[in-house]
């Protein structure tokens, strides 16, 4: 092949692989020898974003640690679909904790390893949004403030999917769940409630906090690799769409994660010691409606007549994210933060 200086690779860094790239520049997921930390036969639903996200995270974590990795798993979808007795889909050492205490168990594993002088073995704890932002919150906060050497990964599908789609502290405004029905003047999940866990984690000023989605594989792999290169408490929050709970087609999982990022509703960034250090800029921004419309959990916003007032409020949330994290390179940073109205009714 003649010498060439062109750095243009058809699909660039967006696709999983790229035959035009040198092998060492390719993703872990494109490798024919990737570990498949969660192997086939698991009972996740068709098009499960969490099964995908967990494999993405763990395959990279296992590679960069050379397989010297212990994982701890809070109760939740991931645990249930991967280990119905007597089967296990795990190809990495894996401990199942209670719903609430994955962070504490991981802290204990890290402490035990340290006591044995085996600090080459790394600890990764994982849970869904329920086990992270609600039930396991105290344990996680303790893990952060004690400075334990654990990477905690939250696979956020924005509700308790495993038990039948109940609202969690990560459920977004106006989304229908089994416990927030689409009735009344403010249908679905109440706005102004819930928790923004990446920002809460940043408030602990831990070494590393990052968000990612299953639609941006390279970004996700880079963040796992970076997190595993650091010591101390680290937190990674991955958006994993759930076809069952979101009422979306299984084939749309990756696309919805992409639309969430492109709309600004899910800001993708990383922070060190409490300060944002980089953001994934929005390549081509879309109105939130494009993200909301394919999901049945938002169907009540698109009835006749549509709830344009509520869609507008969701748009305001996206706008505030874009302003707060400077997500759109084409928009000048705002001088004053955007206010979002939370009054009832419209």
């Amino acid at each position: 092949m003649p010498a060439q200086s062109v750095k243009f690779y058809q699909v660039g860094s967006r696709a999983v692989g790229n035959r035009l790239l040198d092998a060492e520049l390719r993703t872990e997921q494109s490798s024919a020898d990737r570990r498949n930390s969660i192997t086939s036969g698991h009972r996740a639903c068709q098009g499960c974003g969490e099964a995908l996200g967990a494999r993405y995270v763990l395959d990279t974590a296992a590679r960069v640690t050379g397989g010297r990795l212990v994982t701890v798993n809070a109760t939740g979808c991931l645990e249930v679909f991967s280990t119905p007795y007597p089967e296990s889909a795990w190809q990495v050492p894996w401990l199942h904790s209670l719903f609430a205490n994955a962070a504490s168990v991981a802290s204990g594993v890290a402490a035990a390893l340290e006591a044995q002088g085996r600090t080459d073995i790394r600890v990764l704890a994982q849970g869904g949004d329920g086990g992270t932002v609600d039930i396991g919150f105290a344990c996680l906060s303790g893990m952060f403030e004690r400075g334990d050497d654990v990477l905690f990964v939250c696979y956020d599908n924005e509700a308790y999917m495993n038990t039948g789609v109940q609202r969690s502290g990560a459920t977004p405004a106006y989304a229908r769940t089994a416990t927030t029905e689409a009735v009344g003047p403010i249908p679905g999940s109440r706005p102004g409630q819930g928790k923004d866990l990446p920002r809460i984690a940043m408030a602990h000023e831990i070494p590393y906090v990052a968000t990612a989605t299953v639609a941006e594989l390279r970004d996700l792999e880079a963040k796992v690799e970076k997190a595993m290169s650091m010591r101390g408490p680290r937190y990674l929050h991955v958006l994993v769409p759930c076809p069952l709970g979101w009422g979306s087609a299984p084939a749309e999982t990756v696309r919805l994660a992409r639309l969430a990022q492109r709309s600004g509703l899910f800001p993708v960034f990383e922070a060190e010691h409490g300060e944002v250090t980089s953001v994934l800029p929005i390549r081509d921004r879309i109105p939130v409606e494009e993200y909301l419309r394919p999901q049945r959990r938002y169907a009540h916003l698109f009835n006749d007549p549509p709830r344009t007032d509520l869609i507008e409020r969701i748009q305001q949330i996206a706008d505030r994210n874009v302003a707060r994290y400077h997500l759109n390179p084409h928009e000048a940073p705002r001088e004053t933060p955007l206010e979002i109205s939370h009054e009832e009714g419209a």
Partner: protein
Amino acid sequence: MDTPFAITLGPGSSSVNRTGTWRTERPVYVDRLPPCNQACPAGENVQGWLYTAEEGDYQTAWRQLVAANPFPAVMGRVCYHPCETACNRAQLDHAVGINSVEEFLGDEAIRRGWVLPTPAPDTGKRVLVVGAGPSGLSAAYQLCMLGHHVEIRDSAARPGGMMRYAIPTFRLPRDVLDAEIDRLLALGIDFRPNTPVTDLTAEHGFDAVFLAVGAQLAHRAYVPAAQSARILDALELLGDTAAGGRPLLGRTVAVYGGGNTAMDAARTARRLGADEAIIVYRRTRERMPANDIEVTDALEEGIRMKWLSTVKHADVGVLTIERMELDEKGVPQPTGELEELRADALVLALGQDVDHTLVDTLPGVRVEGGVVQVDGHMMTGYPGVFAGGDMVPSARSVTVAIGHGAAAARNIDAWLRGTVATPEPEREVATFERLNTWYYSDAPETVRPRLDAARRVSDFAEVTGRLDVDTALYEARRCMSCGNCFGCDNCYGVCPDNAIVKVRTGHGYAIDLDYCKGCALCVTECPAGAIDMIPEPD
């Protein structure tokens, strides 16, 4: 179950659970027909050779290209590239510069001396090709590749037909043309120049004949003219100029007609020293048969267009023009309004006719509308005599002619073997809607450098420049590989069930139906739209 102490579940033991049973639909890899391939009159697998060029393997890409078309360097200059008009990327930013990459590959081959493949062993069959234009040469090439002995006869002194005697050198330098024709004839094709064929019934010793004599007769239209008015045919002007002549035309030249030949004639007149060249055409630009590329080139060079006009009378130094009007059917109708147009010479470019005297003596051959009729296998009514190119009903272009030659060769080969050529199975077209264009990098087209208009009209230098190695690679990589897998690993990556495995055969991937749950994530995320979902067979 044999597991270590304190381990209750075997690692990876979920694989006993065949989740493939959940499936109601399954993904299958497909090869759809890319719109560029569909649009190519020469039958090139454009997406195929671009795929190879993307890897920088230009020689292999060139080999794939010349399988259909032995003249990439010529085509890269003169083809009107319907492939680019059809290109799906045009709906994203700009069409891929297929034509410029083709030219680059063609030039690389000439520069590096790449040779055409070795023909198949001699079949002992002999085919006579009448006419050494693009159609005849293309047929000869394909027949030769199939192992048949080919003799080409042409009335002209040199091979190339209209490529040599009509296309101006500023569009097609003759060293490029010579290089590609010489390489082709060197395969062992017997070329006989200055040998017009007048009576086919007198030819013996051939198993089949391919007629490709073109349309070389200037269409005669009666233009009342003073005896000393300077009137000449466009083909004559182009032929003389291409042969190195410099016909005297005067300061102002009118060209009568609206086809590609008219554009070439007007552009040639400018280069021969005419201060002004005016195209007189009876309809409007929208209804002009000339290709838009040629019209734009002509306008850039300062050629004036006189629409809705016919020449009523030609005098020395002046023409009488009648203004026309389009009726509701779009047919130009005379208005009776006359005006004078100063012109030292009038060039007639009113179309070209086929000299079909050659087939008039052959029983069974039909001539309709001035062109020779052929069946779906390109055979005339006389068994064993095939015809193609400008002499049969078709859009007249070099690209179409090359396609005819190749198609005729396939049919002749089948006929020689006593069979009938089977058409390629129809493939569904890879439409834009099936693509997931998110994955393609933003990349505006590369534009080939072009001479300034002022420089252009001063001599016969080639107007359009080349891509270099880097820009050609960039341009090739803009291809979205519509409807055909290009190995991006997206399907392999996005499967939550690890049910896509990498294999060394076929598309490079296989679906593990034991575990595929049929979620179709691979289908949605395939950039090229190269995976379909089909109902699960019973």
